[in-house]
């Protein structure tokens, strides 16, 4: 985003101007605190011992930093009856997210390309009908999906989850690539056709290399969406095949024994870390995805 230019407009610089400027920074600062405080509290809590949590307050810094909670959240916290920490579930999430993102992005790219650069009668109708899939509340497909996964023998498995995320991610990845390819001149494709390239030749040699930014945005978006998903995970997997979001919720809501807030917070941060990392490293693309998501709703 570029800074708006009319920055230089001459304004009267008086006391009022300076006061407004101070107020402006004060408000911005208060909101920075508002957004950062929960992260700080999570962090601080996760580094405290349970005793310190009981005696201190939310925002007090840990007097004695301990990583016990982190170790426990990672390796030995109980999720239901199993006490191996989040580690196996992180692995589930990775096994789910990588193929689901790859497949839905690849299919979205081909689909978006075919629908924009090889427009055939009905292409727009097909797109509109597919796009609708991005808007539906998924509750409306939960029941039949559960039965279908059962019929396919994928019930309660990570593979089943990959299928679900691919199918319902497709509408969005298609939308993404379609929007991108709409901006690519038809002339390029026409020229390649005249040069004798076919459907897949043009796709792999000309269109795909151009689409790199769209691929990055889509991959990041899909990764965040699928990693953070809870609904499909909780509806279609059981116990050992849970993705990490479901496991986190189970850790937090395990009612047996003492409530270990420090372990809960460490588990929450561990769960959030991959997407936060992506956000910090590729924030620009993440924001672009959000902006494109505005079309999706």
């Amino acid at each position, binding site marked *: 985003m570029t800074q708006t230019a*009319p920055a*230089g*407009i*001459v*304004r*009267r*610089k008086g006391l009022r101007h300076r006061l407004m400027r101070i107020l402006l920074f004060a408000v911005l600062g208060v909101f920075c605190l508002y957004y950062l405080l929960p992260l700080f509290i999570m962090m601080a809590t996760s580094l405290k011992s349970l005793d310190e949590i009981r005696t201190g307050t939310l925002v007090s810094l840990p007097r004695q930093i301990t990583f016990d909670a982190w170790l426990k959240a990672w390796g030995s916290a109980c999720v239901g009856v199993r006490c191996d920490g989040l580690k196996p579930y992180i692995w589930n999430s990775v096994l789910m997210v990588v193929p689901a993102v790859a497949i839905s992005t690849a299919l979205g790219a081909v689909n978006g390309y075919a629908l924009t650069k090889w427009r055939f009668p009905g292409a727009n109708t097909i797109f509109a009908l597919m796009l609708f899939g991005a808007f539906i509340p998924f509750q409306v497909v939960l029941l039949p999906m559960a039965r279908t996964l059962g019929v396919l023998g994928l019930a309660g498995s990570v593979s089943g989850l990959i299928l679900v995320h691919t199918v319902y991610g497709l509408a969005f990845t298609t939308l993404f690539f379609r929007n991108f390819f709409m901006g690519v001149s038809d002339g390029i494709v026409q020229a390649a056709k005249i040069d004798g390239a076919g459907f897949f030749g043009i796709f792999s040699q000309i269109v795909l290399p151009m689409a790199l930014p769209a691929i990055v945005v889509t991959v990041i978006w899909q990764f965040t969406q699928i990693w953070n998903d809870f609904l499909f995970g909780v509806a279609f997997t059981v116990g050992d095949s849970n993705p990490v979001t479901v496991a986190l919720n189970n850790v937090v809501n395990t009612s047996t024994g003492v409530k270990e807030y420090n372990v809960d917070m460490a588990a929450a941060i561990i769960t959030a870390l991959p997407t936060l990392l992506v956000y910090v490293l590729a924030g620009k693309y993440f924001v672009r995805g959000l902006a494109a998501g505005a079309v999706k709703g």
Partner: protein
Amino acid sequence: MASIRLDKVWKKFGTTEVIKGIDMSIREGEFIVLVGPSGCGKSTLLNLIAGLETLSGGGIFIGGDLVNDIPPKDRDIAMVFQSYALYPTKSVRDNMSFGMVTRHVPQGEQAAALAEVAELLHIETLLDRKPGQLSGGQRQRVAMGRALVRKPAVFLFDEPLSNLDAKLRIEMRTEIKRLHQRLGKTIVYVTHDQIEAMTLASRIAVMDNGHVRQFGSPEDIYERPVDLFVAGFIGSPSMNLFKGRVTEQSGLRLQVEDPAGVVHFPIPKNLQDAASPFLGRELILGLRPEAMVREGAHRPGSETFSFDRMIDVVEPTGPDTMLVFTLGGIEAIGRVDPQDKVSVGTKFRFEVDMSRAKMFDPATGLHL
């Protein structure tokens, strides 16, 4: 009405200097055109006068008052923008009244001013429309109306016609000139179109790279360019600039080398004195296309000189025909009558009116 004075005006964006110490005095009621290639700083200078940019140094005076720290709204100016900058959600009426509303002008006065300007610009029927429902030319009129309605002392125009098609542009050009003659307000007008500059201005400032190269009447700028930049920028097709060596050969001559034969242009009488110190060194001869015509076509008594050249390209434009030929390593253009039948690849004998020739020092670029 007001005069404008710029006193050593500087503008820096970060470390880039965009305006480098411009001095300029504009009298009340003048129509000043700032012209130059893109990036020369002309729009920035206009924005500085408007108060839309803050000065880095120097002073701007409007009507005698220093306005450096005065916000745009208190400078008694109005501005017409390149994109028209109409408020898309407001009707034409509200667009034009907005400046009066913010200044708490009484309703009655607002209505009267609006009616007067709408009639002047023939936009009475458009008042209830939104900008999106207007054509390009209509938007342009509304943008002018918005400026006119407040009756400011100074009008600023930032390339107002560049988004119009050729025909409308000429119409609006005439209309702007008529408005100036009728209202007599001070106008500063930015354009990159030299024809607009020539037709509209009472004085033109030719800008390049943050400097004003020449500030004078259109005739001055065209006939007496101070340097190679102004000579090359103003005029279309542009002035032919031949590089040659000054020799003595029954008077001073400029010897222009060419594979198809050397041409010895006689240096015009009025420039002989100035050129004599350059004997044996290089000078640049500037000849406008219309100074090179068919032999015998000049008015008798002019300081003529003739030479032959092979014609490479013939470009009829209707009223004139352009003949492209090569001389001294450049593509030169002569402007002849369409009646002078010429065909490509044949020799044509040009006659030059040397009294209209310009001579430039290649080292400084300045006119002798």
